[in-house]
Every structure is written in structure tokens, then in C-alpha cells.
């Protein structure tokens, strides 16, 4: 549990712009480190195995935050699936040590932007609208600029709120 809290500190550091500057995100330790070197392939999970987005990003329809799956969730399958592969063994070791991988952020909004995944899913948007065809990406890259003008174009087209305070507070 302590380990879980320790990694949460990393998450919380990402919630305030100021905290990000005052306390830098945990720097990746000197390579090779299992926490930063585990390869994750979306095209394998979402593509070949056709696992739905919400199976791992479980809170996308319930919460403003989509959520990165916990290591326990990874191990739910990987205790059995591909457990002989080196990266999975590395993950398994991390889990045993009470540690979690440190994933580089692909989509990162500034801290003064409030974005709610659940409201966008409720509005009927498909994940791919913003995140692209992740099922075809081996390594996910950003496909949308995530700039205010880009958000506003869609908000205007769809008649969604264009008030500043909808996203900034």
C-alpha cells in the first residue's frame, strides 16, 4: 500500500502546473530500469487482440480521468498470457516488488485545463476522434494538437459550450 501511495505522489504532481515545476515528475532512473524500459504495444492489445479501450482505461466513461491500468490489472491477464516473455517477466517482477512502470505521457494537457473524459464519451465521441487509430499504433504518438483552437473548432461545430470557464478554472 505504501508503494501505491508513493507512486500516487507522481500522479498528484501532474495535477497542478505549479507542483510540476516545484516538484519535477519522477525522473526516470539510470537505464536500464524495468520501470522505464517495458515496451507496451497498443497494436498488439487493442489491434490484434481487439481488447476494447475501456477494458483497461476503465474510468474513461465514469470519471474526468480515463485512467492508466494498475499493474494488478496488467497481471490479471499476464499471470497466464505470455508469462514466458522477458518484458512480462520484468513486469511481473515489478509487481512483486510493489513497483509500477513509469510511462511517458503522450497526451498531456496543461494543468490549467480541465478536461472530462466522461462527458466526451457521454456526448458520443469515439476514443479515436482524439486519440486516432490506436489499434494500429505499435508505439502511440499524438495525432491531435490538443491546442485550444482545435478543441474550440469541435465545440463550435457540435454546439458544445464555448465558455472559458467550462475548461479553465
Amino acid at each position, binding site marked *: 500500500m505504501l508503494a*501505491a501511495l508513493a507512486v500516487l505522489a507522481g500522479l498528484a504532481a501532474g495535477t497542478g502546473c505549479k507542483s510540476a515545476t516545484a516538484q519535477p515528475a519522477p525522473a526516470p532512473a539510470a537505464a536500464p530500469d524495468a520501470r522505464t524500459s517495458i515496451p507496451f504495444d497498443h497494436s498488439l492489445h487493442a489491434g490484434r487482440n481487439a481488447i476494447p479501450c475501456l477494458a483497461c482505461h476503465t474510468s474513461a466513461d*465514469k470519471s474526468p480521468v480515463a485512467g492508466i491500468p494498475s499493474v494488478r490489472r496488467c497481471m490479471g491477464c499476464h499471470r497466464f498470457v505470455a508469462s514466458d516473455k522477458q518484458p512480462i517477466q520484468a513486469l511481473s517482477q515489478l509487481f512483486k516488488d510493489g513497483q509500477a512502470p513509469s510511462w*511517458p505521457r503522450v497526451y498531456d494537457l496543461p494543468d490549467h485545463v480541465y478536461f472530462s473524459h466522461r462527458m466526451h464519451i457521454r456526448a458520443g465521441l469515439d476514443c479515436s476522434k482524439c486519440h486516432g487509430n490506436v489499434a494500429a499504433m505499435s508505439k502511440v504518438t499524438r495525432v491531435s494538437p490538443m491546442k485550444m483552437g482545435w478543441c474550440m473548432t469541435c465545440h463550435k461545430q457540435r454546439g458544445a459550450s464555448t465558455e472559458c470557464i467550462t475548461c479553465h478554472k
Partner: protein
Amino acid sequence: MSVDIPPVSRRRFLVGAAAGSTVLLGCGETVARHVIPWVAPPPDAIPGLSLFYRTVCRECSAGCGMTARSREGHVVKLEGNPEHPIGRGALCVRGQAAIEGLYDPKRLGVPSLREHAGAASKEVSWDAAEGAFADALRKALAASRPVFVLSRPEPGAVGTLLDTWLAALGQAPGQRVTFDPLEPAFIRAAASATFGVATQPSYDIAAAHMVLSIGADFLEDWGSPVEHARALSELRAKASEGERRFVYVGPRLSLTAAAADEWLSVRPGTEIELVLALARIALTSGGAGVSALPAATVAKLTQALAHYELAGVEQRTGLAASTIKRLGEQLVRARPSLVLGPGRVVAGQNAVSLARAIQVLNVLTGAVGQTVHWSEPAEQDAQPSVQSLDHLIETARAGRIGVLVVHHADPLRFGAAFEGFTELLEHVDFVAVFANHAEELAQRANLVLPDHHFLESWSTVSPRPGVQGIQQPTMSPLLPTRAAADVLLDAARTLERTDGLPTGSFAEKIRDNLTPADLQRGGIFDARPVHVVALVDDPLKFALDSASLDGPESGLALVVTPSLRHPEDGRSPGSLLSEISDPVTGISWSGWVELHPATAASLGVATGDVVRLVLAGRQLELPVHEHAGLRRDIAAVGAPFATGLLGRGVDPALGLLSRVAIHKLGRHVALAPGHGSDRQEGRGLALTEAELEKQEGGREHTHLSMYAEHEHPTHRWGLVVDLDRCNGCVACVAACQVENNSPIVGPKEAAIGRTMNWMRIERFVEGSAEHPDLRFVPMMCQQCDNAPCEGVCPVYATYHTAEGLNAQIYNRCVGTRYCENNCPYQARRFNWYDNPHPAPTNLGLNPDVSVRERGVTEKCTFCVQRIREVKEQAKLDGRQLRDGDVTPACVQTCPASALVFGDLQDAGSRVAKLADDKRAYHVLGHLNTKPGVTYLARRRRETT
């Protein structure tokens, strides 16, 4: 050297300038951030959503229910628990600020051990610490030296465990000492003499038609402040139903006195004469309780009270006979009435007698059984704290203490008052301290064992029979601390002395007896039968000390006053409590001594001049604050600042001390100005009903505008502030500051008015010099419909939302401060610095509110993050918003229910109805600002 300057558009230039001035580092795309998932998520946690845990506040002994809001495994806000009978959803300023203690960077996390006397204390592992603890206990038991436990009041599971643990070690029950320095032991002692029941009664303030407080500052430190504030507010609300009066008698216009209809004072030390004169009136003019008394008792009372005829009492107390007569008649007429007290400010040498006189008066007026209740005595911990501390000190003097286990208590914080305790430490072989901070006692201990914070621990808390609050952990321990109860249990197991102790962990022991419903409710609450008490045969048989006060003849009586902003157990307050201004004086950060302006003038000093107070050889230097609400023959010092004057053996619960001599030192300091002028200067900010009627609605501006009116197609959010209910307790200020991540600026910046609180309590002194009237006005952004701030922003960072809020978009703000200059309510604060949130305080930040940067203007938005959260949830649930769904932080915590929030466009909402009340007015409404905040004028309070 020439520099090529690329051509820039105006917009690009502005963007660049803004970036330069506000330091956007960390928000750009170039800084790679990592995202780290949970290894295993906490149960029920969904990232981005809040979880709520019910627990109990341990900041004072009142034991209010608490609801902790947790995000991603960390508590980010504390609120009250509406289902808990004490507090009922509200918290005081100390409860709101408790989160600061949880994330205090100075909180102890690692045990430390002093190997032998004189050695330096070293950090050690838990194994080593627990080993040393068990060894010390083993040695003490082998040498037949007693083990004592000194703890704060623990009315619940931890207290029971401490008792059982001592018993398991074969120790006598008297060796568990409860240290409760401010417990008014004189009330118990008096009840024992008056009724033969040595317990504290409970009071039903809201049911009384006439409340008379004899120096009891019940909104501050007398019992349960949140519960009392709610009760007084209910009493106020019933004023329209008939005569309801609250009269305060005491030497100082305190927060509680300011809430009264009438503030009276008598010569310090003569309060008992007034009470006995009132008792005489009740006895002779048909008090409701007289007829039920045996004739013999009546005869003895008549004889005892004969001396207190009006003329003599007038002469001795300095209070007009007509006033005494009126008070007496009002008490008899009001059925039921209630006399509260004595409070600390009137408790001196005669405290027990005064308490007895008050209890007899409550019997004569029929209040006992109606508004004063005793519960079954067996259910209350009847251990008077001071007596057993004496027992501890005596045992130590005989050189016989093996181990002293201290559990969250520190008599050393009270200066010389417990000097005997300092000597005691030399007679103890081993001192083990369970604490959260390395304060005085911990620094002298052999072993310091860091306990969990109360928000991380299990216990039960029963502040009174029938109320069993459950204290449950609201998050996993932040630091490698251990629960004190488990350390004690482990030690007992190591020594194989486990008789009666639970076999598993302490948490399991508590959890096993509770259902999930109990945990969700926050406790087990049931009504208990009240205990019927009867007067002893001759209840007023006491010899009165003459009311004279010792000390220099020319000096002033020293009165030690309560403070809501300081922990009662003497801990130093955190920076949040220090920065929030004292509501009565407006001072933050420093201490002060209060003098009446006339007294100050006769001493040749003025506000800010430092004086030396001398009392029986002890001295203290404090700056003067002139307070018109003070008797001329006293000097008042707040309890947290008075410890230097406490003499050896002086009970800190007694606040009326000897006379002090005051010497001018010729130095001057600037006391932090919490707000501007003391006077309203005719601006009509804090109005009474009568003053409002006189205005005949003439001060609202006839609305004229060159622009189209704002449309509010869905909601217009509004707030109503009832000045009749508000008592200025500043709980809302702390709630706002915690909810909205407002930084603490420190004493230097506070002194030049740069505090960052979005909400403040304005305090004005009205009335005459003889009858000053303190008025409090909670002031926050008024969310004007015709807002002066909006039109002057050159970058459109502040604008009017469709729901009537004056939004402030921080990432757009370039810090011109035009809006701040143009706001007539001073509701906007400019952020002069990047205020750091060093780890682990950053974990307590509200993730729904941005942490603002240097160079932007900030303000209240009626907690727009809460409005949004509720609206999102309603949308997901497919329903409309209901009245009461949205509760800003200030409204949520108000113990007096003085704040009501809602949609002004919903005609059925409470806020819309109240905004139409005949007491409603807008502050500075004549400026044509059309505020969204409506104030309700204070009801009539005659000062006859």
C-alpha cells in the same frame, strides 16, 4: 552587435509577454512528464473521482463528526458529517485546518531514541524503538517501579485500551492520567457540591427563551463550539416567534459576547454577587423551579441569599440595580431560561462557588431538566485531570516511576503552570512519548514513537453518552509511523502480559464490532435517558473569598481570553490558523494584549506599542491592541500568548488572574492589519434591521445601463448571508482557503495586506464608546451582474458567465490589476509570488482547482469546480439540478447556517426566497453593481 527581431503580430506579442511574466514552465510541451499507475488501486478508488470517509475530528475534545474527501488516495478536504449529532455537517476553523497537520512537513515519521541520559537523540528503526520500549517496561516491572500513562482525553476505544494495557501490566487504575488543561474542573466540583453528581451537564441553548452567559465564551472554547454556534443560530432564527434573548456578562466583548443581544460587565471577580442577586429574584418572584423544592431548602436558600439585595449588589458589582432587576425578571419570565457558565474569563479564585451559584440559579428558574441535562454519571469518565497529575508528580517525587508513557499530551506547553511536571521528568527512569511533532516534551523524552495522524488511525470517540463517533483512517499513513495502540499491544505481547488485551491488531478489534452501515454513518448514535438531579439540602453553603484580586494595587486585572484560532492543548497553530485574522481584533500571526482605549491613553500607549506585563515576577512583552469592547479595569491576553504569565500551580482553566503591572517599552510594531477601517464610515455595509428600515430602500441604485442586460438562460447562482446568524467564527475563511489551494503568505506579507484568502470576515465597531457593537460581514466576490471588474480587463481574462459568475481565467490573466483596483468589495487578490507547496503539502492540494502562478489576479467563483462536478453528475444521471445540490466550501462548513447558496432564478429555491426577505440588502448596492450576494440585516438587538 545587432539583434534580429522577427516581426511579431500584436497577439503573438501579448502571448509572449504573458508567458514571460507568469512563468509557464512546466506547461509547455517540451517538458516530458511521466504517468505512473497504481500497483494496486485502493479499494473503490476511481482516478479523478472523490471518495468520502466518515471520521471524527480530534482537533479539540468536542468530537465533531467529519467527512474527509479523498482523491487518488489522499485527503484533500475536510468537511463535517451531517449525520453526526455533534457538528451536524459543520466544522470550525480548527477542524477545517486539520488537513494542514496531516501534510505538515515537520510531522514526525521515524522513531528516535536517547540511549542514555545526556546522550543525543538518534533516529532508530521501529524494531529498535519497540525493543527499547519493551526493555524499559521489563526493567520497571522487575524493579517494581510503577508505569504511568499520561494522555489527552480519550473518551473511547483508545482510552479503554490504555486502561486495559495498564491493568495487563499489573498497574493500578490511578496510574492513567488524563491531561486536559482547559477542562473546567470547577463545574464538576460544583455539580458534586450542588447535586452530588460530579459530571458535566449538557445544555440545550436553542430551546431557551432567555440565555444568560456568565463569561462562558461558548462559541470559542467553552465546550463544543460548533454545536453551540448552531444552537445559538437556531435561537436567533426563532426570534420572530416571541421573546428570545441572549445576554452576556463578562469583562470583554468576545466573539460570543458580540453575538449577544446585550453585553454587560461587572467589576472583575464580582460575577458571583450578580448571580446570587438573580437567584434571590428568582426565589422571591416565583421562579419556575421554586415550588418543587422542599420547604427546608427554600428556607436555607432564603437565608443564604438575604445578603444579596439589589442596592448592595449594585454597589459591589458596579451594575445598575434596575439592570439586575430586569435580568432577574426576564429569567423568571422566560420559560425555559438558561444560565451558562462560568466561563474562563470570569473563573478565578471563586470559580467553584460561582459555578455552584449558577447551578442553583438554574434550579430556581426551572432550567434544570428543561435546558440543562445531566446524563447517567457512570457513563462519564469522572477522572479530574489536575488531581491525578498531582498524584503522578507526588509518586515521582518519591523516586518511584519506572516508565512514563505519554500519549499526545504535553504539560510543558503551559509554561510554569505545570512546573512540577518538569521536575518529575528527572524522577522517571524512562519517558516514552507518542506524538506527531517534536515539541517540548518529545525533545526531552528517552524514546519518541511517531503515531499516525488522527486522519490515518482507528478509534472511537464518545464525547458524551449516546454518541459514539467512529474514527477511521481516511488514507494510508503518509509516513512510516505506527499506531500507538499497536505499539502498546506489541510491547504487552513481548512481555507476555496480555490479560484482557485484544489478540489481533487494534484496528481489527475496532472494526470487528462495527457494521459497514456504522462506518458510513460515522458512528453509533442513540438517545440516552437523562439523569434527574436534585439539590442537596443546603446548596449555597460556601464561604466566599472576598472578591479582591491580588497583585499590585495599581495594576489591571488580567483576563486570559479564549481563541478559536489556537489548539486548546497548547500546540502551536499551523500557518493557516496563524494567517487567518482573529475575528475580534483583526490581528494575524502575532500575539497582543488588549486594553481599553481610555486605559491605553492613561498608560501613554497606543495600538502597536510594545509593553511589558509583570505578574508575580514573571513577565511578558506584547504589543498593545486597543479594543473598545473591554472593561477599563482589565488587560486581556489571548490564552496562547499568556503562558509566560502563568504561575506555578495556576490552573490554566482559570482565566481571571491577579492584577498585572504594565510598563511602556517605547518600541512599536505593526500588527498585521486583517482588514481596513474599524468603522463603516457611513457606508452601510453591516446593517441592522432598524437601519435598513430607515433607508427606505433608497440606497439601491435605479438600474440604468447603456449595454444589453446579461441573460441567464439556465441558472443564476446566488448566495445569501444572514448577518443575524453569522457570528464571525471564520470557519468559512479556512474552508475557502483549503478548498481553493490559496497559499499562505506569511507574517511579513500579511502585514502589508497581501494575504491570498478569497474570503474574509470584515469586522466593524459600531455603537457608542460605552456600548460598542461588533459587526461581522463575510465578504467574498459578490458576483455582480453589472461588474466593475469585467469591463476593465484588457485581455478578457474576467468575464460574465451565462450562470451569473464573474469568471476569472488564470491562464489568460496578465496581471494588470485593473480589475482589482476597480472592485469596490476588494474581493480580488493579486498573487505577488510563486508560492511553493513543498512536499508533502502538495498532496493536499485540491486537484480540481488550478494552482495559480505569480502575476495573476485570483478570486472566489462560488467554488465553480463544485458547481461543475454536480452539473456533470446530474447530466450523467439524466436529471435536473435540485435546490441544495451545489454547496460551496464556505456554505458547507458554516456552523451557524448563515450562508445559503442556490439558483436565484429558481423561484422555489431557498436562496431566491431569502433574497426577497424584508431584511435583504446588497452591500454597496447604490453603486449599481447588482450583486449576486444578498445580505440579511441583523435583527434588532437593543442595548438597553
